[in-house]
């Protein structure tokens, strides 16, 4: 006579192996796919150059790019800038590391590294750039900007109109700044560390 408790255990153990297998597969596939999506969205790859709030990926379009950069560019399918064309810097945060937000006013102060021309615009998180012919100044470039006597510049980034150089952004949304240096020797060199990008400083938030 077999005790009833043992018999119950036996029927449970029949389900135990399939359950463990299901758990393993769920973690493997769920975790694998989720981590890949996160990695592809979070970063363009390794090998970023960080200058203050700005970062750039001078190797992203080359054959020397790391596997993450290659996967990202195959997935994003964007037309990247070649080495002789320029180098694109992006900033998601200000100097203090806080995320850029349309409710706040920022000042971009200083000089760019050596470049023949540059363009600056703010895009939403989906990287959708503004179209060039809007009524608001959604994008600036080195030809139309007002400069100080020493060649440096101050750009006010705000959802409300500002005196001087004003870059308009959408209120109440986080945004990304993109500064593209065209025909710049910095694209080809790794000595970029000595160079300085303009600072992205928060002036204030709200209507204060």
């Amino acid at each position, binding site marked *: 006579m077999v005790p009833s408790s043992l018999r119950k255990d036996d029927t449970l153990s029949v389900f135990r192996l399939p359950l463990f297998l299901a758990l393993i597969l769920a973690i493997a596939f769920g975790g694998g796919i989720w981590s890949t999506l996160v990695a592809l969205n979070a970063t363009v790859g390794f090998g970023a150059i960080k200058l203050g709030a700005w970062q750039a990926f001078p190797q992203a379009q080359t054959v020397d790019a790391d596997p993450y950069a290659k996967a990202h560019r*195959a997935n994003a399918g964007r037309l990247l800038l070649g080495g002789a064309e320029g180098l694109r810097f992006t900033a998601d945060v200000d100097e203090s590391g806080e995320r850029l937000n349309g409710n706040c006013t920022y000042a971009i102060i200083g000089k760019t590294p050596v470049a023949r021309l540059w363009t600056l615009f703010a895009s939403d998180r989906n990287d959708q750039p503004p179209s060039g012919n809007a009524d608001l100044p959604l994008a600036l470039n080195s030809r139309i900007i007002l400069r100080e006597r020493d060649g440096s510049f101050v750009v006010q980034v705000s959802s409300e109109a500002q005196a001087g150089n004003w870059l308009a952004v959408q209120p109440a949304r986080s945004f990304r700044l993109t500064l593209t240096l065209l025909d710049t020797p910095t694209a080809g060199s790794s000595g970029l560390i000595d160079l300085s990008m303009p600072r992205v400083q928060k002036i204030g938030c709200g209507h204060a």
Partner: protein
Amino acid sequence: MLKLILAIITGLVGAALLHLVIILALPYFSDRDAYTKVVAQGEAYRFHVIGNRPDNKGLVKDDPFLDVAVCSFDLTERPVRLTTHNGVPFWSLATFDAASNETFSINDRTAAASGLDVIIANPIQATALRKTMPASLMQSILVETRQMQGYAVLRVMAPQASYKPAAAAFLKDATCTPVAWK
């Protein structure tokens, strides 16, 4: 309990392996990569201007001041010659292979004064061209690449609205044509 922990660890190892496999394999399987989108723009050996908004092929120009045109080509049969005239504040060209690796790039200051004139050729074609260069191609920059399929991206800057017509004309006049090499 021990079996449960073992199952979770096995699952995590599997997840890491899958992560690596996807990351490494994605460039070979992606149908959203730049080359696929450029080919989908239309016929090869023609510059197609990219619009402001994403078209149904998914390409979008990613700078409001830079107008962009793309051209896909295949060097298996014949090399391709890319030409434009000058007369805009800034232009630049980059060529890529089918895996979107840069093969060559140039801008208006690094090019000759007369504008863009580049021939992309595979090594056999390049050797033949160097031996007997036709007089009409003497001024061209000869670029050698082993990758047969590829695409060219031509950018032109219109820093102000008044430059737009010149930039549009620049892209319209740009050619991307196969050339005879033997």
